[in-house]
């Protein structure tokens, strides 16, 4: 097995508000190995984007973090902001959702690449920088003839490829891609997912792919982590999780996908909870079809359901921790039809 590049332990990221803090990431642990793609999925507002930003040290002022993000021998939460900044790019790359707004309309593609390389690899000669840039662009299918063009001369899909090339030109060890294909058409999305899949083979990059689309995870990721209300409720190999989802939330999320094979419309009743004041104990219990008494009373404990596949759900025990009678079905209030995301 390849080496673990990013090891996240008990990570918390809280935003300050006028009242109580928003607990967007609330005790999350996972690791990514080099050349591996981890898909991070969940509904809007589950904290998945915040998690990506925390890893990159991009949280706004007034937020607080705790836990550990181990990258090589360092804890990224403990090093100085200056050091994190120097890591961002050559070590920790990122790709955002909206390619339209992330390139400077006033300068050429060449300028974008030169600026990046000047900042992070000033010792390279101009010629080497050029070669590196053209290679990165070519890997994304952007012809070298277009190096001196401006962002507006490219389509949305091409701009997103340029953004990916711009992240890859520095050969980052870890790449965080936050909904990289959401704004794109389905065929272009397929093309870019293909590129990202090649990436992990050719560049040995560890990729954290943040998405709300489980179809994308199934096709492009090795492992998957399912996030709900600030917690990772299940993680494991993509095949295992899709074949035998352990957490009722994962199951519900899988069922709610509308794909070509869908035969009945299914959805998750209710809405994701507020992260300021999430439900006690298991955060999914008010929406969970399998909720038991214990789910509303006691915080679930992480258990392994298979090799490398774990979940936080009382349905999987541990039995000795469930108080007597705790496995009785939970009496719940009915969720109104319009209580939804």
């Amino acid at each position, binding site marked *: 097995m390849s080496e673990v590049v990013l090891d996240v332990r008990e990570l918390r990221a809280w935003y300050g508000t006028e009242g109580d803090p928003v607990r967007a990431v609330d005790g999350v642990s996972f690791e990514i190995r080099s050349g591996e793609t981890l898909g991070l999925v969940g509904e809007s507002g589950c904290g998945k984007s915040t998690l990506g930003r925390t890893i990159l040290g991009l949280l706004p002022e007034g937020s607080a973090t705790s836990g550990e993000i181990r990258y090589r021998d360092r804890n990224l939460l403990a090093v100085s902001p200056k050091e994190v900044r120097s890591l961002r790019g050559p070590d920790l790359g990122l790709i955002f959702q909206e390619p339209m707004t992330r390139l400077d309309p006033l300068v050429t593609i060449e300028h974008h690449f030169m600026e990046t390389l000047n900042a992070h690899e000033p010792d390279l000669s101009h010629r080497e920088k050029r070669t590196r840039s053209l290679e990165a662009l*070519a890997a994304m299918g952007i012809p070298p003839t277009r190096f001196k063009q401006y962002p507006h001369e490219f389509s949305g899909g091409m701009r997103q490829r340029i953004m990916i090339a711009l992240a890859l030109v520095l050969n980052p060890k870890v790449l965080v891609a936050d909904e990289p294909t959401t704004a794109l058409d389905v*065929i272009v999305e*397929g093309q870019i997912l293909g590129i990202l*899949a090649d990436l992990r083979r050719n560049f040995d990059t560890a990729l954290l792919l943040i998405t709300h689309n489980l179809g994308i995870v199934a096709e492009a990721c090795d492992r998957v982590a399912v996030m709900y209300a600030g917690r990772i409720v299940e993680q494991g190999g993509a095949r295992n999780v899709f074949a035998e989802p352990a957490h009722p939330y994962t199951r519900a*999320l899988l069922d*709610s996908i509308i794909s070509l094979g869908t035969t009945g419309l*299914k*959805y998750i009743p209710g809405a994701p909870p507020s992260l300021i004041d999430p439900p006690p104990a298991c955060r999914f219990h008010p929406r969970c079809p399998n909720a038991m008494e214990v789910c509303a009373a006691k915080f679930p404990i992480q258990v392994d359901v298979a090799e490398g596949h774990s979940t936080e759900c009382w349905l999987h025990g541990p039995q000795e921790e469930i108080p007597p009678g705790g496995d009785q079905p939970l009496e719940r209030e009915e969720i109104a039809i319009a209580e*939804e*995301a």
Partner: protein
Amino acid sequence: MEAVTVPEVQPRSGEDALLEVRDLRTRFSLRGSFFDRLRGREAGSVKAVDGVSFSLQRGEVLGVVGESGSGKTTLGRTLLGLAAATDGSIKFEGHEITGLSENAFRPLRRRLQIVFQDPHASLNPAMTIGESVGHPLKIHGVARTREEIESRVVEALERVGLAPAQQYMVKYPTDLSGGQKQRAVLARAIILGPDILIADEPVSMLDMSVRAKILELMIDLKRELDLTYVYITHDLATAKFFCDRIAIMYLGKIVEIGPAKEIYADPKHPYTVSLLKAIPEPDPTRTVPRDLPRGEVPDAVTPPLGCSFHPRCPRAFEVCGWESRDLRALLEARWTRMPEAEYRAEREVIGSLESLDEPAMSAVVEPASGHSAGEVLEIVDRLRADAPDDPFWTGVADLAERDGAVAIRFHDGLDPRDVESGQSRLQCHLYDPDALAAAEAVRDERRSNDRPPSDRGMAD
């Protein structure tokens, strides 16, 4: 988890079409530069909708599916008079509605309503949900007294599941979730009792977990209120669930239209086939499809010659409309795969590439100064040797050194026309006997030219 099965919806036959669209065109003229205007030169136009025909039966759900830039949104807006049709006809219950003045159109809007993609942008942030939903009643002067408006707003809100209505009426859009906002927008759309609802990507901004709920609501509303839908979307998966018929749009044209069952079970147009293939499936045993069409939807200002899809089509052949820009794309794709030094060596030989950007059925590739046409020809030969099976080469009628440059002539391209296949109608040369015959003739000619000259006279 709540599961719902969708009832089979059959369009009632025998009735006249509710909406009859014939050869509809919507063009937007482009603003040229100051100098263009001084010289009185036209800056050109975008053919957003370019000759679209279909009919919509009462009670039917028609899916209009396409990528961005396909013209699907403009089509929806044109049906509602929100964009002016340049040409063609739209008949609503037999009455022509194109070219109507805003005043003449207004009463029709009670019967034709639209729901947009972004529920947040569709609701006035300064109005309560009750005011927004009741607003159409005021505009159209349908209900005048406060009590009357309120009772109809309550009814509409409860119908879309925003119950108890009193609780939601006083809220502002920011207080609601995305799904709730889209429910409010639907309430506003149905409050006037429309016949046709045009829904433009109504669920694509919503989370996966609520999409099903909003679609289910739309199915319920259709049944309860006897609505007819035009469902505009980029997503063939939700359309499959919802639509009786599907129209696939590409660069302003309907390239395939037919019963949903047939489109999904037996897609015919290569574009439809690729759209279906590209949808990510929640099945980890499947990997990202590798054989997707290259490139993206081209610029609608200067669409490709012949069939608009030919540059991306894996099954394109002789008569699909090959042209100069395809050669540039092929050269660039080759250079993308090459190490920089080799690319430079080849690029230096070829003069300006811009001459290939002007759409033409022939192409002249000039050598750069200090280089010869022979060197250019060598590159083109290598290009061919690299990918001899690329559909592009079927379109090349003649390739030779001429007047110090390399000249390429392409076979005459044909514009696709409507052909019937099964219960579908499509625009693809693969299904057009005349286009196939034209291609066969081209192949025959090539075969006879390939024969040594001594045989030629004896062949016929």
